[in-house]
């Protein structure tokens, strides 16, 4: 693979991740948000797979395939299952902020991400590390989605955005963390999403909806 092709793939993949995050903010229907997350997982997996092929690193290639299975297939499937149990009228995430201001906010957050990551790109500037600001932007957008959406499934989606961003940062900065850590991290994320899925089911049974505005009993 020529260096220019590699750079193209990495830029395209990280750009794709950011685009998917922006579209998640734009769309309200949870069904399309889950589809976007699957696309983002695909773009994320492209990073270690391309890097593995370019550097001739088989282990990284395998990690990439595992990421593909986990984040493009398994996690979106878990979310879709949680969503399918929702009554049809409640499959929208009503955000606390309207779409136009949300998108403006996303632009701001992207700028912030570029500012925050300057020490990283200043320390080491390669094809991979130069894409780190976009991964940071995805992390911040994930946090933003978690704060402004009041539906259990959309909070889970925000969490996955955040997590995809962090995974992308790890791949871009360091060709991924050591295998044993990567394995543990993936397992933890998988379990966290399963737990969130089960809790969503319980919310629906006890509160009649996975709407988080109901959760205000506990306070002082």
């Amino acid at each position, binding site marked *: 693979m020529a260096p220019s092709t590699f750079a193209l793939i990495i830029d395209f993949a990280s750009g794709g991740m950011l685009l998917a995050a922006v579209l998640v903010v734009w769309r309200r229907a949870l069904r399309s948000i889950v589809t976007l997350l699957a696309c983002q997982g695909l773009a994320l997996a492209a990073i270690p797979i391309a890097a593995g092929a370019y550097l001739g690193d088989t282990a990284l290639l395998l990690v990439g395939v595992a990421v593909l299975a986990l984040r493009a297939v398994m996690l979106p499937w878990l979310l879709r299952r949680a969503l399918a149990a929702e009554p049809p009228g409640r499959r929208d995430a009503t955000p606390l902020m309207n779409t136009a201001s949300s998108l403006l906010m996303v632009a701001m957050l992207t700028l912030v991400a570029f500012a925050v990551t300057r020490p990283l790109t200043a320390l080491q500037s390669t094809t991979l590390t130069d894409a780190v600001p976009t991964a940071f932007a995805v992390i911040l957008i994930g946090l933003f989605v978690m704060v402004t959406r009041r539906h259990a499934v959309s909070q889970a989606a925000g969490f996955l955005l955040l997590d995809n961003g962090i995974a992308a940062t790890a791949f871009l900065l360091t060709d991924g963390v050591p295998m044993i*850590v990567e394995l543990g991290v993936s397992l933890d994320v998988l379990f966290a999403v399963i737990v969130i899925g089960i809790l969503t089911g319980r919310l629906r049974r006890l509160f009649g909806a996975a709407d988080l505005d109901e959760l205000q009993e506990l306070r002082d």
Partner: protein
Amino acid sequence: MTELMMASLLAPVAAAGLTAALGWSRLSATVTAISAAVILFCSIALATRVGHGVHLAAGGLLRIDALATFMLIVIAVVALLATVASIGYLHTELADGHTDAAGARLYGTLTPAFVAAMELAVCANNIGLIWVAIEATTVITAFLVGHHRTRNALEATWKYVIVCSVGIAVAFLGTVLLYFAARHNGAAAAEALNLDVLMSHAGALDPAVTRLAGGLLLIGYGTKAGLFPFHTWLADAHSQAPAPVSALMSGVLLSVAMSVLIRLKPIIDAGAGTHFMRNGLLLTGLATVAIAALLLTVTGDLKRMLAYSSMENMGLIAVAAAAGTTLAIAALLLHVVAHGLGKTVLFIAGGQLQTTHQSTAIADITGVLQRSRLIGTSFAVGVIILLGLPPFAMFASELAIARALAEANLGLVLAVAMTLIAIGFVALARNTTRLLLGAAPADAPTICPPRSLAFALVAGLAASLALGVAAGPLTDLMVAAAQQLEGPR
């Protein structure tokens, strides 16, 4: 030493497996308690051998040093008390129909698994593995917090899982940045996350990247330790979880997360200068103490009161960690074990009050002292421990923290912290007086604690007293840990 550590890690895993296979019974619960006793035995054996050494195992993934051994002892003691109390607690729950066989099996499986995850978090040498273990505690305890399937328990579980998962994800980002800095500095890929390797490279890490990593790690693990600004899950989760689980969470889980921060601080200090983490810990620590003291004055709920008191103590520990001298770290370790013991006694006694009254509002639970001598006295002594009065160890630890702060030229911080703690003291004393001595309604239910619970209470109080009168053998361990962790001045 490796064998001892492995035995202590595998004992609770075996107990979890047994309960998962056979379901909850008095037998499986007793085996779980025995597994906690095994941890205690192994950690004491380790303590006699570890000295000032650092022993690496499993290809550098695990480590045994003074801090790890000390935290293992704290985990073991609290786990032993909590698992013994669990026998009677769960038996009563089953008899009253508050849970069923499946719920009891889940509880019996997850509790020892939770203990094992905490052990791994303090024994891991690889900061990636530490992260995995800490996140595992969140995943495992999620269903323990939601054990009572009420709306309130569910609300608490949801907040707990979401806030802690996000916080801990931020810590992973910090871990990745630290890894990046170490790799850039020439550390080998396979071991650049190991504490010893990071420490040897720490002086040459890029300051700007290390600062970024340090900030993210502080926020991340601070979330799990109940520090401001992500403390919001704490009171909800602690008040809704079953009492023995609250004891484990409050008594050790918070300090386990704090011990991770204490381990990371010397690395960040060497890479980014001592002021960064120091100011960060001071700021979050003081803010935590302030919020906890204010909430203590308004809360009317027994278990939330105990939770806010935990926050207050974690804030104080963070402030002591900021000072970072040998005396400060030794003092904060004494504070950790003294608080762990006292809080365990209080949560177990409080849990019995909750079971009896089906409520945790202090207004519903009054005149406890005249209605049950055991529960009343345990609660009273537990609060005396928390208030930092002699002869208990928190008196000595708070004095030592105060002295350490004064010596580190943090007099102003000391003054603010002391004022806030005084506010918390008054609030805690006032609520407790009402609970213990207030007039009891004529139709108040009788408090009859199960035998195992009573045993745990008496044992916890005896241990607290022993610790207060003679910290003795633990002192060497705490000083050794403090000397290893003392940052550059």
